[in-house]
């Protein structure tokens, strides 16, 4: 089995094995959150792979979530239809937003996407209160309806649904990362001008990653809405966005598996630090700084860094005594 296939199989098997170990509602809730976060961080990393840190990624999750919640509660559509419609709404909005934001790069891109993220949050919070629920939030969102004889009214069923969605998303994104698309995206991140002069339409690649990432974020948002059954604009604000960055960067953005490692470890840490309330973000901030200082390639790169260190130590140990320059 190839490396990528083995990685996807490991995630799928672990997800499938969990209900055999425990069906405790709390653990299923945490595991569902991990899978939801993993879907988000993997799609966020798709954009990072082309060199863009999109601070509005969480907003596209929010757009998918609110679109689905409203279409189900107001228009009476089925969750199974809005799952796709919500994601498509997020992707459709990503086209003009990405087209504007991607005209610039570096800190300007960061600021434009950050500004868009705040606009979206404030829009959900302050405008059309009767529709979006305002500061009190949008409540009364139903769980997914029955499909193919399956009911989704239990934690276990919702976990199963999220697990299937997550594995399909991971499979697709890993496949892309190991394809020519991933190769070209990485080239753009390293030297976009060189890639452009080699015939790569850099803007189109970046926009594709932006829109595709937003589609997946929208998909996660739709699930989030019907899983939590209540939406607040703050669910898609700066704090969850910072957490998304922390999860992805701590895991490592150089590898497609980095976000998986970061998300699993940090979501569990987040649960353990729940008692700290708002101080939790300070702890994550400190962890992010330490990672940047001591493991800039992320946790996923630590084993190979350790191997390199060991090899260097071994070489030094076996080098003949007295070798090297005299003082």
């Amino acid at each position, binding site marked *: 089995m190839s490396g990528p296939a083995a990685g996807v199989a490991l995630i799928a098997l672990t997800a499938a094995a969990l209900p055999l170990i425990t069906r405790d509602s709390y653990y299923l809730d945490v595991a569902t959150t991990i899978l939801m976060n993993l879907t988000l961080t993997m799609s966020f990393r798709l954009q990072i792979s082309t060199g863009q840190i999109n601070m509005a990624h969480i907003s596209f999750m929010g757009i998918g979530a609110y679109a689905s919640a409203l279409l189900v509660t107001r228009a009476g559509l089925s969750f199974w239809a809005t799952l796709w419609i919500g994601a498509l709404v997020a992707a459709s909005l990503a086209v003009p937003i990405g087209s504007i934001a991607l005209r610039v790069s570096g800190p300007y891109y960061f600021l434009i996407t950050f500004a868009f993220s705040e606009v979206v949050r404030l829009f959900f919070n302050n405008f059309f209160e009767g529709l979006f629920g305002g500061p009190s939030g949008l409540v009364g969102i139903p769980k997914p309806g029955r499909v193919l004889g399956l009911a989704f009214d239990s934690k276990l069923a919702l976990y199963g649904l999220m697990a299937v969605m997550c594995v399909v998303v991971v499979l*697709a994104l890993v*496949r*892309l990362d190991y*394809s*020519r*698309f991933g*190769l*070209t995206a*990485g*080239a753009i991140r*390293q*030297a976009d*001008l*060189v*890639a*452009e*002069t*080699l*015939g*790569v*339409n*850099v803007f189109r690649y970046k926009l*594709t990653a932006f829109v*595709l990432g937003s589609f997946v974020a929208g998909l996660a948002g739709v699930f989030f809405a019907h899983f939590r059954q209540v939406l607040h604009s703050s669910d898609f604000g700066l704090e969850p966005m910072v957490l998304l960055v922390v999860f992805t960067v701590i895991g490592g953005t*150089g590898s497609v598996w980095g976000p998986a490692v970061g998300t699993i470890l940090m979501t569990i840490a987040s649960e353990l630090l729940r008692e700290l309330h708002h101080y939790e973000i300070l702890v994550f901030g400190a962890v992010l700084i330490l990672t940047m200082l001591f493991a800039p390639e992320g946790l996923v790169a630590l084993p190979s860094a350790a191997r390199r260190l060991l090899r260097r130590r071994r070489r030094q140990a076996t080098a003949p005594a007295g070798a090297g320059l005299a003082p």
Partner: protein
Amino acid sequence: MTVMPGSIHGLIGPNGAGKSTVFNLITGVIPLTAGEIRYKRERISELRPSEICRRGIARTFQATALFREYTVLQNVLVGAHLLAAPGLVPALLWSRAYRERERRARERAHALLTSLGLGAVAGQVAGQLPHRDQKALALAMALATGAELVILDEPLAGLTDHEKAETTAVLRRLAEQSVTVLLVEHDMKAVMGVCDTVTVLDHGVRIAEGTPREIQTNAVVIEAYLGAEEPGA
């Protein structure tokens, strides 16, 4: 300035003459504000660099520009982007046609690397290659696009005499294969030895154009180079 198909055309001039700027204008890296550039009779002045590359023009940079984290083979595969005709859906579906196309792209990349003496380092990380190999890799990436005109910015800079001889031999071979070469180079001996035509720039103005022999004896050119070495010296 006109570059004839299948020729090796040198662009020389003192420092600051605008040689690299001409390359940046031809390849769309900086926008043209006056005049026009035509390739095969088509006006290419307003095109993006990627579109210009699609027309058959590829380049290298003065400061060797590579994808330093990638292996040598991966660098060339990015260069082969246009010939591989990538697409999102075939990549996602991992179809037989997609895999076959990728297999052929790898074969072509290996053949190209072997022809440029890089076959043995195909798996090495580009950023760790010696200078000569990095220069050769930059050329390989440009050729991998399938370009009919390659624009080389100081391809011999920093090379030993032996390596320069190897590189000029490669340039001659390219011309034999009907690939047009336009190059900027400070090594006058090499320029005069390998080029069919030489254009001389000074302060952004073309002051002479002709065969190496004509350029070496051109009084205006010699004057422009006063204080520096005489062309062909």
